[in-house]
Structures are given as C-alpha cells and as structure tokens.
C-alpha cells in the first residue's frame, strides 16, 4: 500500500523529472508544435483518403491519436528510465507497488496529452476548416480526459514485458499504431471485422465512439462505460505485470528487469 505522503512525493518527483527532461522551452517549441503537426498530418490524411464526414471524422480521430502519442509513447518510456538509470532496485526495496509508482509519475504525461488535445482543437480545427467541429467537441472534453487516462494505463502495461529486452520502443510504438488502426480513430468501425475485434479490448475505441456520438447528438453513456471498463482492465493488467516483474527480479537477481 502507499500512503498519501508517499503518493504526493511520487507524483512530485514525476513532475520534476518530466520538467528536467522536458524544459518549458522544449515543450513549447518542439513538443506542442510536434503534436499539432501530427494532428494536422493525420487530419489531412483522412481528407486525402476521402474518408467519411468531409474530414471531420479524421479530425476527431486525430485528437485521440495526439493524446495517445503523449500517453502511450511517453509513459511507455518511464520504466525504461528506471532501468537505464539503475534505480529500480531502490523502488523494489521500498515495497511500493511499481505500477502505482509509475502511474503517479505518469501524471505530467496525462496532463500534457490533454493539453495537446485542447491545443489541437484550438489550432488544427480552424486551420483545416473544422473550427465548428472544435466548438462542438467542447462538451466531449471529459471523455477525452478519460481516454487520456485509459491510454496511459495501456502504455504502462505495454512497457512492462518489454523491459530488459531493448524492445520498449517497438512495443509501445507498436501499441500506439495498433490503436491508430483498430480504435476507429481514422479507419471507420465496420471496415474490417478483425480490426474491430482487436479494437474492442483496446483503449480509445469506445471513447472515440462516445465522442462521435456527442457530435452526432446520439446517446454516449454506454460507450463511456465501456471505455472505463477497458481502462480499468489495462490498469489491473499493468499492476499484475509489474508485480510479476518484481517477483521475478527477486527470484533471478535481475533488478534491472533483464
């Protein structure tokens, strides 16, 4: 278990670490512009491929993609940082659940992901002629926040088995691109049964369906509920994977996960 003091200290460390690696100058001059460029690219790609909804389908999907880049892509690297820094053994000795620790340290990534979504709505929407859609999406912001959290849980889970095998980048990026293909962000649901089946158990899919339902004025609560269930499932999986990792490290003497 983790006390409130430990939780606050851990979250604080996460913020300090994040800002040390990503000073404000870097966040504002490279990270945010990158997120905007990515959102713009995938929105235009959707327009180019003549997808549904005159491009608004792709725009709404791109918002989900942008937050996944910060959560799955960024958070996925967190455990690796422990490994390369040689600090995991301290975490191990503290007795704190590693998944909880990493989850608390993920807070800046979740916040940054949500901020990039808002920025994309404010900038990319009008630039691509979807300014009205941006305004209509405002009520869906809590759903987008939920999607940030659920994708963060998946990112943490994905990073666990990869540690020690130099495959963190492949697995976390692989998950991210899997989300792009199967979550209905850019490829409409119903296009390919296999993609639909995989997407059902991944984060973002139900959330983006809920967001589109908000845009269309349809009921959205059921999809939000499913998104919560999927997110909790990934969080539990992350917890179990890290517990197993720690137990394995004790058994085999591999504190750096290798």
């Amino acid at each position, binding site marked *: 278990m983790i006390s409130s003091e430990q939780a606050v200290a851990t979250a604080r460390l996460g913020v300090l670490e994040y800002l040390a690696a990503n000073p404000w100058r*870097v966040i504002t001059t*490279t*990270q945010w*512009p*990158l997120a905007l*460029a*990515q959102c*713009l*690219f*995938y929105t*235009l*790609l*959707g*327009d*180019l*491929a*003549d*997808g549904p909804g005159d491009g608004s389908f*792709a725009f709404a999907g791109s918002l989900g993609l942008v937050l996944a880049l910060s959560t799955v892509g960024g958070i996925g690297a967190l455990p690796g940082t422990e490994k390369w820094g040689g600090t995991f053994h301290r975490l191990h000795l503290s007795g704190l659940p590693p998944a909880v620790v990493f989850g608390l340290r993920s807070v800046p990534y979740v916040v940054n992901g949500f901020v990039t979504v808002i920025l994309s709505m404010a900038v990319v929407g009008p*630039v691509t002629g979807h300014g009205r859609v941006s305004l209509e999406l405002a009520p869906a912001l809590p759903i987008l926040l939920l999607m940030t959290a659920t994708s963060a849980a998946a990112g943490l889970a994905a990073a666990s088995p990869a540690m020690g095998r*130099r*495959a963190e*980048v*492949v697995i976390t*990026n*692989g998950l991210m*691109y899997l989300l*792009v*293909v199967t979550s209905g962000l*850019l*490829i*409409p649901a119903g*296009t*390919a049964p296999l993609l639909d089946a995989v997407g059902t158990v991944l984060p973002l899919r139900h959330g983006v369906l809920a967001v589109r339902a908000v845009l269309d004025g349809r009921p959205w609560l059921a999809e939000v509920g499913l998104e919560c269930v999927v997110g909790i499932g990934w969080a539990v999986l992350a917890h179990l994977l890290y517990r197993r990792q720690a137990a394995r490290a004790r058994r085999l003497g591999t504190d750096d996960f290798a």
Partner: protein
Amino acid sequence: MGFADIVRRGGTVLDVVAMSARMRIFELLATPATLVLTVIQPAVLLLVVLLTGEGLTPAGTSALVTGVLLTAFWGATVRGTGAVLARDRAQGVLARTVTGTMDARLVVVGKGLGAGLLCIGQIALTIAAILLVLRPPMTVWHPGWLVVGLALALLSGATVGLLIACLFVLTRYAMQISSVLIYGVYVLGGMLIPPEMLPGPLGWLSSVISLHWLQEFLTGSATGQVDLSSLSMAVVLTAGYAVAGSLLFTRMVTRARSEATLDLV
C-alpha cells in the same frame, strides 16, 4: 597528382563509405526500434489510406503507395541518418569519428547510405506485403525508372542526413527538433499530402524538398508519363543538400572543437 594516386584515393573514399554503410546496417539490424519507422508506420499509413478511401482509381492508389513509401523513408532517414551522430555521441564514439584521418563527412554519408538502403528495403517489403493482402487495383511503375527513383531517394536521404547531422552536433535537443522536422515535412513536403491541399503560401515549401519531386516523377512513371524535369529537380536539390551539408558540417565540427562540445569519452 597522377592517375594512380587518383585511383588510390578514389578507392579509399569508396572503402570508407562502404565500411561506414556496413557498420550502420549492422547497428540498425541490432536495433529493434528501427522497425517502428520502416515496418509499423508505413503499414499503418498504407492501411489508413487504402481502407478509409472510397472510389480510389488505380493511378490514385499508385500515387498513395508512392507517397507512403517516400513519407516513411523521410521519417526513417531523419531518425536513422541524422540521429547517427547523436547515437555516436551518446556511445562516446563521436570523438574518434571526427578526429580520425578519414574525412568525417564520408563516414556520415556512408552511414546515411547504409541506413537508407536498409530502410528502403524494409519499407518496400512491408508495402509489398500489405498490397499482396489487400490487392487494390493499381498501375505499376516502370521497373527501370523505379530503380532510378529509389536510388536517387537513397542519395537524397544520405545528403539530407549530413545536413541534419549538423543539428545533432549543435544541440542536445536535436531529437525533439528532428521529430518536428519529420512531421513538418510529412505535412508540407508534398509527398503523401499534395501541396494543393495546403493553404496558398505553404504549398511552395514542397518545391525545395527533393522527395516531393521524386513523388511527382515516380507517380508519373506509374502512369506512363515520365517526368524528367521532376527528376532533374530532385537531382539538383540533392546536389544542393550535399554542398550545404558538407560546408555546414565542417563548420560545426570546428566550432565544436573550439567550444569543447565534442565529448572525448
């Protein structure tokens, strides 16, 4: 300098380039992360454009496939080639590269060629595999012109890599800046996203990107319209990148030696 000297020097230059290319290929083969840009991303891009679109013509499909190939190649080039020096610096081998008796530019270009060759191969195989599964109707490129186009893409990638390598010598935030560069060119580079889709003033930027002209050339060759003027533009731009990159790189290294920003160990 006699003819024999010229031949000997040429042989040495080829040796340096070939050995550097070989080193970089081996390194990349031992780096699973490469697969993100050479397998995963092109696969996703291709799936998105082919599964989303309705009523794509065969020529349109070919243009999209070419665009995906060149777009993915651009990303892989910036990461695989430009990041060479960043990786060398992190491993502590940058010092030897720039203080050896061989021109460090040859080493960087060689590594760029090696990276480009591997990347183009992996991207092409990935695209071929997906096309075999989806079997969309498309027009096929003239094989000869396809080879010419890809060879020029390879050279272009290596020279761009030299330019970007300067970035990695200059600043510790080069990885973040290069990520912006990747997507900036994805949007403005005129490969997958045609310049006509962009707001007026932004459309012209693609004219200074060699891969845009290769996109025009290869798309034309798939429809039987060989556009040699586009090919020429790509050649001119590639030569321009080479000259600029060469001059800039030498200046950057001298500056780094003066400011002590090259690590010894």
